[in-house]
């Protein structure tokens, strides 16, 4: 029961990039405990995604398909995942941290009688007993924990593990029939998708993010959209902006929202509350534009510009256009 099982997450019929970070974690863990790792995909029709998952050196890619799995229901998926782990001898189950895995994996842990570690940032040690580092207190404290049970479940903070590279050869695809049925006590009603032409926030190489300094919807979108378009960037927001209804909830960056680590993070008109910094401080290059010279965001920014965003951003767009046309 020592194998590691990665639960792949699917979005728009593709493997989410964050899953590649969970694969890196699984490879490292399997190496340290002297076992191997596999990848599992769940849903109604996931075979084409499975092909994508065969390129990373997994022992197997399990395809668990059923009409019942068309829509995600926590209790049903938890049974399917735990059953598979037991069938294939996987004592360790992991996935990249997301609303999907955070909802699902605690139930899997309960079914497996396993301890669970949320948001793993690093594995400590080269051989068992292994320990894991994870953030607490909005990232102000890092705890080192040990799982005392034989089995363990993890959500992995994708920004802390590099994305797995493709390797030679292909993993074998193994089809599994889950023993699941439609639950009587819960029904999927619908999904109101946030439509966006922009790259996914957690996968974008450039993120442009705004705070309450941009005042209202017109200020926020009017200023950030053209800059994001120019840079091919995703747009992010602070909790205050989301609470005010200026931006939808899934754009929130911070400890209770999304954690991002792009190559370039441009923070505009946001002060940099502890909660927000926890979600972006691992970005490679951070730019801050804020008219308050004492804003905490400047303490983590590589390049700070004390200026009124409404003046500076249009100028920034013009300057970048000039540089890009050279």
């Amino acid at each position, binding site marked *: 029961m020592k194998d590691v099982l990665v639960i792949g997450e699917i979005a728009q019929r593709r493997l989410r990039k964050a899953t590649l970070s969970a694969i890196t974690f699984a490879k490292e863990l399997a190496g340290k405990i002297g076992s191997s790792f596999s990848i599992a995909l769940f849903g109604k029709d996931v075979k084409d995604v499975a092909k994508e998952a065969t390129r990373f050196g997994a022992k197997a890619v399990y395809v668990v398909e059923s009409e019942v799995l068309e829509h995600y229901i926590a209790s049903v998926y938890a049974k399917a995942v735990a059953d598979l782990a037991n069938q294939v001898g996987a004592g360790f189950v992991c996935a990249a941290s997301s609303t999907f895995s955070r909802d699902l994996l605690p139930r899997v842990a309960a079914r497996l009688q396993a301890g669970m570690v949320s948001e793993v940032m690093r594995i400590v040690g080269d051989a068992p007993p292994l320990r894991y580092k994870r953030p607490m207190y909005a990232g102000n404290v890092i705890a080192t924990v040990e799982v005392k049970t034989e089995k363990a479940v993890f959500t992995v903070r994708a920004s802390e593990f590099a994305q797995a590279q493709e390797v030679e050869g292909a993993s074998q695809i193994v089809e599994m029939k889950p023993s699941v049925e439609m639950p009587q006590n819960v029904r999927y009603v619908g999904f109101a998708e946030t439509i966006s032409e922009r790259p996914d926030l957690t996968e974008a190489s450039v993120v442009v993010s705004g705070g309450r300094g941009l005042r209202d919807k017109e200020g926020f979108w009017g200023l950030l959209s053209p800059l994001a378009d120019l840079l091919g960037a995703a747009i992010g927001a602070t909790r205050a902006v989301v609470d005010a209804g200026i931006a939808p909830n899934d754009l929130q960056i911070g400890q209770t929202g999304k954690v991002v680590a792009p190559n370039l993070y441009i923070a505009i008109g946001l002060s940099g509350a502890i909660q927000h910094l926890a979600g972006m401080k691992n970005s490679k290059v951070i730019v801050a534009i804020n008219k308050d010279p004492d804003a905490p965001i400047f303490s983590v920014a590589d*390049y700070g510009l004390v200026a009124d965003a409404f003046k500076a951003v249009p100028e920034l767009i013009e300057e970048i256009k000039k540089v890009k046309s050279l």
Partner: protein
Amino acid sequence: MKILVTAKRVVDPDAKVTVKTDGSGIQTTGLEFKLNPFCENAIEAGIQLVEKHGGEVVVVSIGTEDAIMNMRTALAMGAERGILVKGSDETLDSDLTARILAKVFELEKPDLFILGKQAVDGDSNQVAQLVAEYLGLPQACFASKIEVMGSKVLVTREVDGGLETLELSMPAIISADLRLNTPRLPTLPNILKAKKKEIKQIDIAELGVDPTLKVETLFYEAPEQRKGGVKVKTVQELVEKLKNEAKVI
């Protein structure tokens, strides 16, 4: 209807916490303690549902006797009575917390159990889901809207990519996200009334729960600090540095 809600006492989420020099814990001297913000959303949601449909809100906390003060806030907001299971964070993990709460659920038999989606100290985001699995009940986590219709409850969930809606049969487990509501501030008359409301204290041992932990925290440390860089004077200088120094555009 009967609604059970959580009230965890946590370090003020706006305070800057530091780690004890020996790594054994968090430096709490001089810090204020408050209700976990997500629990406040859960409490408010319970009270609003009872205001609309009748019934009572029961608030549960696991903590030392210090937590009574914070439970009184929940009672002043409108909860009817409280249950304090005596324990401290050092002797708990998410799994044991969930097994204790599942036991309290079995004793109280509520229609709904609404928890904060995570506590802002541990940040694990596991307890509601674990409770649901241990009780074999349906869950709707990260709720931004809750509507009760007869024996069913319609819950909108904040998930990656949008908003999902589930219909659960009660009893059910819900975890509250920040957009669910704006928690009310207790009025002075209600604060006075809350002092007379009952808070029952129970020892973990009385509940017959195995106190063995599945995850142990060994030590705590401060995160690596990111160093601030330079201030630029103009937009031109910024773009020049991004292109030639950082090479990101």
